[in-house]
């Protein structure tokens, strides 16, 4: 799809806006609709649009499959880590109010951290799934060329 000028220009125009909107949904999730899950999906669809219209290699230069694999584990690790941290600080698992001196501040901090973990995992898993499908598609095509 690289030679379709209109599609390419619109994609380049919208890609940063989609990323910005994902960050807005992420950090405004405490006040309005949204949160880590939605923000992760929006970020992933932005990257997928970029990879679809421009080039997979371009997208993979921004985030490589290996980085994504690490990030998706890191997200779960952050989430569970917050749970254990609140245990070490004298509370129960995922009891955020012990994370800071002020219980409300602790709740805020805990929610922000676990939402960030959700965001990382969701975004990187979705992009990884897309990369996987495209990689398999290409593999099949090179296979067919071998057979011919």
């Amino acid at each position, binding site marked *: 799809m690289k030679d379709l000028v209109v599609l390419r220009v619109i994609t380049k125009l919208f890609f940063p806006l989609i990323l910005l909107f994902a960050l807005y*949904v992420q950090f405004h*999730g*405490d*006040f*309005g*609709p*949204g*949160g880590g*899950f*939605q923000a992760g*999906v*929006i970020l*992933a*669809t932005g990257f*997928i649009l970029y990879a*679809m219209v421009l080039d997979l290699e371009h997208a993979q230069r921004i985030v490589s*499959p290996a980085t994504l*694999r690490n990030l*998706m*584990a890191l*997200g*779960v690790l952050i*989430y*569970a880590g917050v*749970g254990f941290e609140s245990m070490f600080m004298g509370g129960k*698992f*995922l009891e*955020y*109010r012990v994370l800071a001196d002020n*219980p*409300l501040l602790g*709740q*805020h901090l*805990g*929610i922000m951290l*676990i*939402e960030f*973990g*959700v965001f990382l*995992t*969701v975004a*990187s*898993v*979705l992009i*990884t*799934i*897309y*990369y*996987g*499908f*495209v*990689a*398999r*598609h290409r593999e*099949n095509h090179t*296979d067919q060329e*071998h057979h011919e």
Partner: protein
Amino acid sequence: MRMRNLLAVAMMTSIYSLLSASLFVVLDAVDVALTEAAVGAGFSTIMMLATIALTAEQEKVPRHRALLPLIVVVTTGAALIYGTLDMPHYGDPEAPIHKHVAAAYIHDTPTEIGVPNVVTSVLASYRGYDTLGEVTVIFTAGVGVLVLLVGRRRNPEERRRVP
């Protein structure tokens, strides 16, 4: 209406998702609407298109009649509609769902959590275990796709021997 072109079916599913997202907005469930629009209309459609690209664009013509599935679908649908007859009216404050923990969550969120969006406080704090489970499920899905589609890389020599 009968459609065998799977590309068209994927687009119809996407439109259906977008419509139900706007239905959720009408019902004041903006968080769910945002998820439905992003996942249902956006990502699932892309994944269906990617799967179609890997497999075939046309559905095969089935050999058997669709009579039994039709009966099952009609019976289940009738049972579900019958079940909605007893349901409390939309927005009824006396409905059982509003009598359980929901009232406590709405009442205690400003003092206990201090987050204006009650949905976030329920998902991230009151129901933090569930959300951790969900994230683990998503992580597992990612690992599954990695193992199935990416990890299996046989060399071309070996591939030619396997028919």
